């Protein structure tokens, strides 16, 4: 019984070794663009560059025209309120 156990132990190790090499294969799927096709390190790099490009634009000084537009919109509301008041 003891020698039998020793055999199955070494057999188990051998199986574990074989299993390790087999397990690697499913990670490799260069043709699929669906989930999990990219290595995490590549995803991170793409994300880093994307945020850098995006961040550069978001950090640009704003042209005056946006603040002016918002002022005008707020003012047009005030004018409408005034009109409504004078109507009644």
């Amino acid at each position, binding site marked *: 019984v003891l020698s039998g156990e020793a055999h199955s132990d070494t057999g188990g190790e051998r199986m574990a070794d074989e299993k390790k090499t087999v397990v*690697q294969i499913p990670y490799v799927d*260069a043709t699929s663009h669906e989930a999990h096709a990219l290595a995490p390190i590549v995803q991170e790099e*793409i994300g880093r560059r*994307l*945020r850098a490009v995006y961040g550069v634009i*978001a950090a640009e000084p704003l042209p005056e025209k*946006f603040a002016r537009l918002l002022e005008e919109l707020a003012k047009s509301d005030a004018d409408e*309120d005034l009109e409504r008041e004078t109507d009644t």
Partner: protein
Amino acid sequence: LIKSGTSQLQDELGKLVPNLRAFARSLSGNADQADDLVQETLVKAWKHRASFEPGTNLKAWLFTILRNCFLSERRKRKLEVEDKDGFYAARVSVHGSQSSHMDLVDFAKALELLPVEQKEALLLIGAEGFSYEEASAMCGCAVGTIKSRVNRARAKLAELLHVEGAKDYGPDQFPSESDARPM
């Protein structure tokens, strides 16, 4: 009361203009068109502000307005010109580069080459940090569709830009044991 509500909205919209510009520019690839889009978005948001539910995500609401403006504008333009300006120029000049500045220039060019649905999904998730659920509501499609678009966008960019590591996972090269990560 009305006045304070108005100036509060004015402030909140103002704060989101940089993000709206970055989204519009990345989406359209054109600075002038992008600023027109942002202005159109602000006017529409103001006009329809009664339909915004307080307590919900103002940024998501504005981004939805902007992408709708962009897509309807694009539909109109597409009837006029079939090929987008600069498409071929961008395609031939995307190469591996040395400096990190060039990396970003190339990245911006490569981004232009993505189909608009993929680009939009990638920007919302990867650049703005919206959740997949938020992005799916904004784009009017399933969560799985957004995930798939983001993955395809990343894969295409990695391919176009020869991002290091992408080739190591090609069909003939298996990652070594130390490279393997749980996915």
